[in-house]
């Protein structure tokens, strides 16, 4: 007598063997850590030439209390793998609606960042420097949203399995970051970083970023749900993307200081 659980497992195992066997054909032999990191960065931050998505963030504290943030992100790549523009426009909660955050991401040198607060009627540049500050109270850092420059860390492949390359990264300038090292699990099939774990000076993991759901959007593998967990107190932030669209043709002049006060409605609202 076979029980159904056993049957399922056997079938699954068989499928996995066939599947991974097929995968191995495409697996890159002798790929370097630097190349992998670049590919991962491209997959995670440079899908299409531009893009728009609605995002909803649920921030849950150690007591289980929730805060919500809802915003639209517009992105334009000036150069694939290079300079980028981001515009983040908040819609909820209602009392921060219209708050705008803009980034001109550079390859070398510091990014330019701006802020617009409608209730104070205030446009402010945010000084270059530390990007590992919280993104509006979430467990995400600004750097997680726009991407950490691959040149800031040294990279090393420390392992792999059927599905993932496992990389370890160490900061070149230790005092500029709060971590001692981090590891990334990069999906072999699409190069999306599926899991990033941060370690403190004692080698203890304290922070975890996970991609929970990946979907094909216009044939581009795209993370739709992600989660950051503070492993010390188990508080976390869930990020869900919706109405994701690539290559909408947004012009560069949408990402100017002038546009902060009058966010480009036509590009923010999807059809």
């Amino acid at each position, binding site marked *: 007598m076979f029980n159904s659980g056993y049957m399922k497992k056997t079938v699954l195992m068989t499928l996995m063997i066939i599947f991974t066997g097929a995968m191995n054909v495409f697996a890159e032999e002798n790929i370097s850590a630097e190349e992998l990191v670049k590919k991962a960065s491209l997959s995670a931050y440079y899908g299409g030439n531009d893009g728009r998505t609605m995002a*909803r963030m649920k921030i849950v*504290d*150690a*007591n289980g*209390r*929730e*805060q*919500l943030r*809802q915003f639209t992100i517009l992105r334009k790549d000036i150069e694939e793998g290079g300079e980028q523009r981001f515009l983040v426009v908040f819609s*909820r*909660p*209602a*009392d*921060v609606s219209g*708050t705008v955050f803009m980034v001109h991401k550079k390859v070398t040198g510091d990014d330019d960042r701006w*802020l617009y*607060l*409608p*209730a*104070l009627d*205030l*446009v*402010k*540049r*945010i*000084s270059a*420097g*530390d990007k*590992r*500050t*919280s*993104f*509006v*109270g979430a467990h995400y850092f*600004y750097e997680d949203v726009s991407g950490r420059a691959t040149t800031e860390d040294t990279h090393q492949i420390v392992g792999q399995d059927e599905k993932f390359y496992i990389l370890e990264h160490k900061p070149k300038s230790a*005092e*500029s970051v*709060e971590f001692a090292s981090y590891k990334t699990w990069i999906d072999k099939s699409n190069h999306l970083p599926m899991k990033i774990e941060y370690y*403190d*000076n*004692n080698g203890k993991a304290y922070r975890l970023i996970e991609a929970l759901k990946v979907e094909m959007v216009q044939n581009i593998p795209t993370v739709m749900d992600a989660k950051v967990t*503070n492993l*010390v*107190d188990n508080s976390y932030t869930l990020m869900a993307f*919706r*109405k994701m669209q690539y290559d909408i043709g947004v012009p560069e002049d949408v990402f100017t200081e002038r546009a902060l006060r009058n966010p480009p409605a036509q590009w923010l609202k999807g059809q």
Partner: protein
Amino acid sequence: MSTRLIDFSLTRPVLVYWLLAIMTFGVGALIMNIKVDTDPENMLSADEPARVFHNQVKENFLLSDIIVVGAVAKNDASIFNQASLTDLKILSDYVLSIDGVKTSDVNSLSTIDNIEQAGEGTIRFEWMMNTAPESQSEATAIGKKAERLPFVVNSLVSGDEKAATIYVPIIDKNESYRISNQISEKVKSLSNANQYYITGLPVAEDTFGVQMFVQMGISAPAAALVIYLLMLYFFKSAKLVVAPMIVAMATVITIMGAMIGMGHTVHIMSSMIPIFLMPIAVVDSVHIMSEFADLYKPGKCPKATIKEVTSHLYQPMLFTSITSSAGFFSLALTPIPPVQVFGIFVGMGMLLAFILTIIFIPAYISRMSEEQLHNMQRKLFSNGHSNSTIAKILPFWGKFSLKNAKLIILAAFSVAVISIMGLYKIQINDNPIRWFKSDHDIRVADRVLNDHFAGTYDAHLVFSFKGQSDLFNVWKADIESALQVSDISEENKTQIRAFFIKDNIVTPAQSFTLMLDDMAFEDESGATGYDDLLAITDVYAAKNKVFTQPAKLAYIEKLQEYLLTTGLVGKSNSVVDLIKTVNRELRSGDSADYVIPETANGVSQTLLQFQSSHRPQDLWHFVTPSYDQTLIWLQLTSGDNQDMAEVVELVDKYLADNPVAGDIEVNWAGKAYLNLIWQDKMVSGMFDSLTSSFVIVFLMMAFLFRSVIFGLLAMLPLTITILFMYGMIGWIGKYYDMPIAVLSALTLGLSVDFAIHFIERTRAIYAETGDWKETINHMFKEPARAITRNALVIALGFTPLLLAPLVPYITVGAFLATIMAVSALVTIVLLPASMHVLKGFIFKDDAAK
């Protein structure tokens, strides 16, 4: 009853020994389960509303117990010098690596964020001190930044800039001893730039726990030794006085075993049980041995003598044991759990000691050899007279009190009047930090840090919005009327209405908005009704976020300004200070912009920026994420309950004069406030306990003596003693604190003993002789001797508490010793004087019999 017990003791001595051994070691073994509790919070019962609220506030605002590490730059230098800051950075980094520290909440110059202007139209968020300064100018620059942040000044850096602190929040306060030791160790490896001080409630509590054991380990055995030597001096027979020591040890061990076995923790109060029971447990034996020594003559049968003595003393010993234990049992009426436990177990200990005395002492004495007893006799009496000093002095005393009876009564009356005047001068005050001696490290740290900073004592004034359900109902009704005219499909309307039926919606506006957003997104009918519902919900959500409303924040700002004018509050911190700081830096950096934004949205957007720092979670220590509860954190430089009480009173008055608008409740939390609450309970509880035990003891006396007038007489010495003691506290200005409060009920139970013995024996002798003069002559021989010996045993038995490392123990020791001495003195002077004056009246009935 009495004869049967004594017979049992005399006929089956070996069985008595076995029973005693089995009980002592059987119950005593439970002591192995000892659990120490040093949390002053436990002075309040777990369901005490003030304590429940305090813990709720701790949870709502994610507050931890904190170890405070203070660093004062040496040579009177500014703390903003390269070496001092480098050490501080190293120490702070080390603290972050210690297991058990809540790292995200560690506050020091190197873990906090700075927000500032960085040139025209630019704002900067950065760590205040990410790396140690590499030059003096960098160190000075850090000082310049720090002094602009209201949260830092006088909290993390002293106003005189000579000291800085590291606030170390810990996850489990039972780990504070280990963590503070680790910090102390690390300090040794630093350069010699700063002097360090470690304090904070968890450290104080842990240290207290350690010293409590020292007290039990040193004072209690020392008391045993003092009592043993004293009895040896009285009775000159080492073998004989071992008997009461066995009774005392068996009582202490059995009672502690029973208490711990029943799951009670050893708290500051119950740690005093051994030293209380030790002298109390021997008093009955002292009476027996005293009279035995007097009556036993060589050639007499010791068994017969001990039987005569014991049955003779049975009644007064029973009376005193019952009344004394009633005094302790009355502590069960106080609303303070540790005091209840203390009272109940000491009370039971007294009854146990009585029973053990009755069954063990006769058994023991009956088994002593004739030779040993003869030896004792020879040493005690030469020429048939007692040798002791006490024996020589007492008869004079008796004559003196009779001769000057009226003068003595007048003197007692005057003492009573003066004491009552003193009662009105009593100042009620306590401060757990003062439980340590003045030269203790914790006291030193406390003084230094409160001298430099705005205060290390915390109280929280909590504002809670209570109108949620009213707002909810209005919103629900508004949504319903909007739905009536909406173009949304019936199916979706049903789903929307279903939302309001769900229970326990924690953040209804947020979830409702999400649901509507999703619905609008999926809806392909082109219905526009969602926008109306969302608009209504936005209004509702804004109304719930009470503490983003500028008017409410302005009220808090005003109250904080007022607090500073009281002179009792060194500094107060609230979300308002946070908002104003961020607003200032967002706008211009000028102090003119250190204001609350004009709209609630402005406040929310300012706070959104605060949350874009390295430490967004700091916001939730001041306001809840739903913005319906907020607090002002008060820093007080004094932990005196008196000062906290005055702050509470002033704030109450302010709130009455400037009522807070809207449906908002204002309540207190914080350690300093909790201390005040349990002090209030202690004072009123002790008063209740004292009055009720006074009444109970009086009724018992009147019943036992079958005479109201003798009942009143029996209460006389202790009344004078208590009045005298508390009057004295008033006159000399000592604070009425926890140990003093507890003493009142103890005094009553203990000092009534002397009066009972004196009256009971007087009446018995008078009944025999029928002559007052002769009665008094007789009284000032053996009976007065026994009373005096007992007074000395108890008074001196408590003196080892003076060696204790903690102040409450010393207070208890000093006061109890004095009380016992005074009440014995009053008994043997005032009682005969009073009876002399009243003799025609009180002995009329007896004589007639």
